[in-house]
């Protein structure tokens, strides 16, 4: 059996909404997640991506047991998360980028020590882990600072340490790099990669930063409107949208959309136009045709990038 086993998972929310200027209340159902099926094996690093409101956080909450599914089958490490929430808590770590598990008024060190007691981490193990994470995440100078005085990035690193002290098999990260600067993001990614390599920790990470995915994940799960629209390795996702490349043309003067055989104009912005053409086709005849009929100031060719692929996926609503 897989470490994480999700079959036809569903979560609907009942929301009550006022209509007629507040005189009437109607009951609405929001399907946050539906028909979601996937399996994750030990040691995988999976990127879980999708547009706002796609159902990522809802899924993570169900995986951690703090939200009960309304339908489908869900097992994590053989346990039913919502029923065995506390037993599962000892085997997983969770970081919600927008929330903190640390105690606001206590120094970082005190939060860690409370967690040690809470999870009954053997002292030697605790000291070794703390030492290592503090070193790797560069938190030594912050250990005695109350959490409320930490910067966002420092707090996030504190939260990640807190989530890992009890050696969880699975680490869920819901937007861990949100609000971090480039250097901190880089260091965090490096840390997560090392964690996975050294300890085989399974990583499930949601993010809107595709560089996180590129740097970390061998596998990508794309969710949109509550259901998976892509599940596979990153190169396969790139190949999906790899069907087109883009020729960016800067004309000397503004002009109506360029008409040349083999390419279509996707966007016009002043004198600049974007033409897309099949990735396997050669750019040379298209460039020649454009140059023959228009006054061109500059030309460049864009390879398909993952962001575009995903934007494409979202707008098509599936593969």
């Amino acid at each position, binding site marked *: 059996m897989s470490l994480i086993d999700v079959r036809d998972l569903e979560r609907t929310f009942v929301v009550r909404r006022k209509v007629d200027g507040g005189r009437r209340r109607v009951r609405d159902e929001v399907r946050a997640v539906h028909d979601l099926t996937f399996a994750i094996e030990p040691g995988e690093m999976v990127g879980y991506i999708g547009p706002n409101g796609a159902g990522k956080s809802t899924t993570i909450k169900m995986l951690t047991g703090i939200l009960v599914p309304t339908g489908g089958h869900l097992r994590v490490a053989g346990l039913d998360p919502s029923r065995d929430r506390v037993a599962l808590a000892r085997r997983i770590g969770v970081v919600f980028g927008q*929330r903190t598990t640390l105690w606001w008024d206590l120094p970082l060190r005190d939060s860690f020590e*409370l967690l040690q007691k809470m999870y009954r981490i053997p002292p030697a193990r605790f000291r070794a882990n703390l030492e290592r994470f503090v070193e790797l995440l560069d938190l030594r100078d912050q250990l005695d600072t109350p959490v409320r005085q930490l910067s966002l990035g420092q707090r996030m690193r504190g939260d990640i340490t807190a989530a890992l002290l009890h050696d969880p098999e699975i680490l869920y990260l819901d937007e861990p790099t949100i609000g971090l600067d480039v250097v901190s993001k880089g260091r965090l990614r490096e840390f997560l990669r090392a964690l996975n390599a050294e300890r085989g920790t399974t990583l499930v990470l949601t993010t809107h930063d595709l560089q996180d995915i590129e740097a970390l994940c061998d596998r990508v799960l794309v969710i949109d409107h509550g259901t998976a629209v892509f599940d596979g390795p990153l190169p396969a996702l790139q190949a999906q949208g790899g069907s087109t490349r883009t020729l960016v043309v800067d004309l000397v003067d503004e002009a109506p959309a360029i008409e040349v055989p083999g390419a279509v104009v996707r966007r016009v912005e002043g004198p600049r136009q974007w033409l897309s053409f099949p990735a396997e086709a050669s750019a040379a005849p298209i460039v020649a045709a454009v140059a023959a009929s228009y006054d061109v100031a500059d030309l460049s060719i864009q390879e398909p990038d993952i962001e575009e692929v995903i934007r494409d996926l979202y707008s098509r609503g599936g593969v």
Partner: protein
Amino acid sequence: MLYVAIATRAFRRYSTYRAATIAGIFTNSVFGVIYSYAYLALWDENPTAGGYDATDAVTYVWLGQALLMTIALWGGGTTDDLAERIRTGDVAIDLYRPVGLVGWYLASDLGRAAYHFLTRGIGPTVIGLVVFDIRLPAGPAAAAGFAVSLVLAVVVSFTIRFLVASSAFWLLDQSGVKVMSGAFAIFFSGMMLPLVLFPGWLGTLANALPWASYIQVPADIWLGKHTGGDLLAALGFQVFWIVVLLGCCHAVLRAATRKVVVQGG
């Protein structure tokens, strides 16, 4: 042990607010002096009001000032943290920890209470002792009884504050309920006026409500009004309310967990 660690952390955390502590001791002392003179005038009119003599009355005033913060009469204390975590949704994370919320916050509140007792409790009492004629516990039984009763008073008050904070699960914000509950507490704890002075049915009612455990019960034990079996009965009264209210806390928490985990907040 986890709970001891939680209590120690809370103690330490409150001890960082030094200026607030000193200002608080000052305020408690000023109110103690004002109330003392008011009570003395009252007992001058009626020297045996409520079965207290003037020394009892003044002692009662200073006990009230000492207990005020220790039991967090107005509400607040560590349960304010809980209300805040409910409001922000962080409480969802607390729910998946391998430790219950009631025990967690109770331990934390006992740590807070210990700090407030040592500072805001003992501080004004020293002033009271110097300025006024105050009665000390009648004997070792009264002293021990008072100590137990004080801890029980904190727990009773905690359960009510926990319930108030839990209202945020449904109302998003505890402040309305907190103000209301604080008003009840001030009136029915005997903070404004000893419950022994409440007439007829109002007195009977007030003495049966949980708020009587806050000040009236520990004060009467201190003053030696309860001895022997009566003292045990007074402590039993507090324990009774703890059992009932802790039951309510667990029931409410179960309902709240259902709401968060099943309905999704």
